[in-house]
């Protein structure tokens, strides 16, 4: 790092300005959740109230959407964890024909615009005669969630020396024992990080979902409908705030986790 710690002032202003730009809109969500204004987005709010929290709690459609989103995210993450780890193991540990193709294949669903993935999957489902259900949503989400688990796992596999696996086998551990006692503990945090990302990605996804959901609504679909045809703005305000709160916790957790990592890394030097 720089030994010169004096920061040029224009840089500081630009950086902090950027930070305000990034955070202010999210902060605004918190204020609007309490506004008494029902029909417009008036600023400053004419008054503050807690009334809309109660109204939101009583809304069955919000709860249904939330539970569907959680269920879909959990199952998609589980599938992505298994498939992503398997693929990462194959790609990182061995060289085989088509290895490059597979890493490209995994990235494709997230590299291509969501609408293309959405339409393709929709046509695949109708071609295979699969009726729309929670499972079609899950399949769609797992398709693009694999890549984040894969990316995290493949990087960790590459850093985990192949000699560790050989050492385990040399000491008498069979394949299962090697996986359970050596591989899993070494890639565990990478899988945790990948899994958290996959969960967040799935929980928030809207574009692919519009094509792979039948008449079920995930929370983002519910939000989208409210955005296009607002029915009850105050309820949307409250839901938006709750969604932000739900996402803040994993970020703070991830921050503390990585901060711990930095400390031990520093201690080794």
């Amino acid at each position, binding site marked *: 790092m720089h030994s010169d710690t004096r920061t040029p002032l224009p840089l500081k202003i630009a950086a902090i300005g950027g930070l305000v730009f990034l955070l202010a809109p999210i902060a605004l969500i918190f204020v609007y959740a309490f506004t008494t204004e029902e029909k417009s987005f008036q600023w400053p709010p004419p008054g503050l109230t807690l009334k809309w929290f109660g109204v939101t709690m009583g809304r069955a459609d919000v709860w249904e959407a939330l539970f569907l989103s959680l269920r879909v995210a959990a199952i998609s993450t589980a599938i992505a964890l298994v498939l992503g780890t398997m693929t990462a193991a194959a790609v990182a540990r061995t060289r085989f024909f088509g290895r490059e193709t597979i890493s490209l294949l995994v990235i494709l669903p997230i590299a291509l615009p969501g609408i293309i993935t959405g339409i393709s999957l929709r046509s695949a489902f109708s071609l295979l005669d699969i009726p729309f259900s929670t499972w079609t949503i899950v399949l769609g989400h797992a398709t693009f969630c694999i890549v984040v688990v894969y990316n995290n796992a493949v990087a960790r596999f590459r850093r985990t*020396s192949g*000699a*560790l696996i*050989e*050492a*385990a*086998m*040399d*000491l*008498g*551990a*069979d394949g299962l*024992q090697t996986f359970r*006692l*050596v591989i899993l*503990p*070494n890639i565990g945090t990478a899988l945790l990080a990948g899994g958290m990302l996959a969960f967040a990605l799935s929980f928030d996804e809207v574009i692919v979902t519009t094509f792979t959901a039948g008449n079920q609504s995930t929370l983002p679909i519910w939000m989208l409908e409210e955005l296009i045809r607002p029915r009850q703005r105050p309820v949307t305000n409250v839901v938006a705030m709750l969604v932000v709160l739900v996402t803040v916790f994993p970020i703070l957790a991830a921050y503390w986790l990585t901060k711990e990592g930095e400390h031990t890394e520093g201690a*080794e030097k």
Partner: protein
Amino acid sequence: MTEAVSFRGVSRYFGSVRAVDGVDLDIRDGEFFAMLGPSGSGKTTCLRLIAGFEQPTAGDIKIYGEQAAGVPPYRRNVNTVFQSYALFPHMNVRDNVAFGLRVKGAGKPERHKAAEDALAMVELAGFGDRRAGELSGGQRQRVALARALVNKPKVLLLDEPLGALDLKLREQMQEELRSLQRALGLTFVFVTHDQDEALSMADRVAVFANGKMQQVGTAEDIYRRPNSRFVADFVGSSNVVPADFVGAGPHDRWASLRPEDIRLDPLGHEAVVTSRAFHGRVIKLGLKLGNQSLTALIPATETLPQPGDKVRVGWDRARVHVMGNGA
């Protein structure tokens, strides 16, 4: 007497690369056996074939008379000390050492006791609770050794185990390994590219190049009676000259003459000094004798000739080794 390890016509190809190419090899029970060669010579692949990380493309491997080809590493009663040590970073030292016993189903008290004993053997008693990351290079090396030995393997494989240590520590570990091997009476198979290490530690040395075993024998055999130009050059340095030049045989054979066997001799051949380097106890002279370049190591106590000087040199005919014509 059953051989500890025996290779018959063993080959291992990686695609078109012949990493190991038709090796016949016998390692005796209880011996300290070194496999010496430059990188890419096939010595490490041979070790990995014994450990079971590689399977032979062709040929037959027996360990204590039992067929080993096709047997996975975890079913071989053979353990390895890895070049990188490969200590498990997520376990403390005790759990590292006890790993082999744990996967074989030993109970916790039993394996902890065995781990402590093994750690004591490598003079690391009381280090059980530390993490691998907190140890020095030499300590990690000892943990790796204890982790392998605790399983009481039939053969211990060591893959350049001292390569990462500095000189002082390396010399100390060489002695410790040697005495440990004697005390345990265990078969050690040791891979190194360091000829001094191989010669000083091993009962017998096998020299590898290009996937083939070039020569096998005691350290003295290999050094005094190299059977090829490659061995003569790789193990120590040597003047490889036509046999008739040193008066030891016909022109179509090659002979090896070690630099330290050339001495200043007032009755010897006249030579011109082309270079001189001071090495402490000895000086290294580049000589031109007729058209033949030679290297000589002479004691530094002698009067020191300068480049350009004419000197007379000679050697003992018994020190000249005539090699096969395949050289």
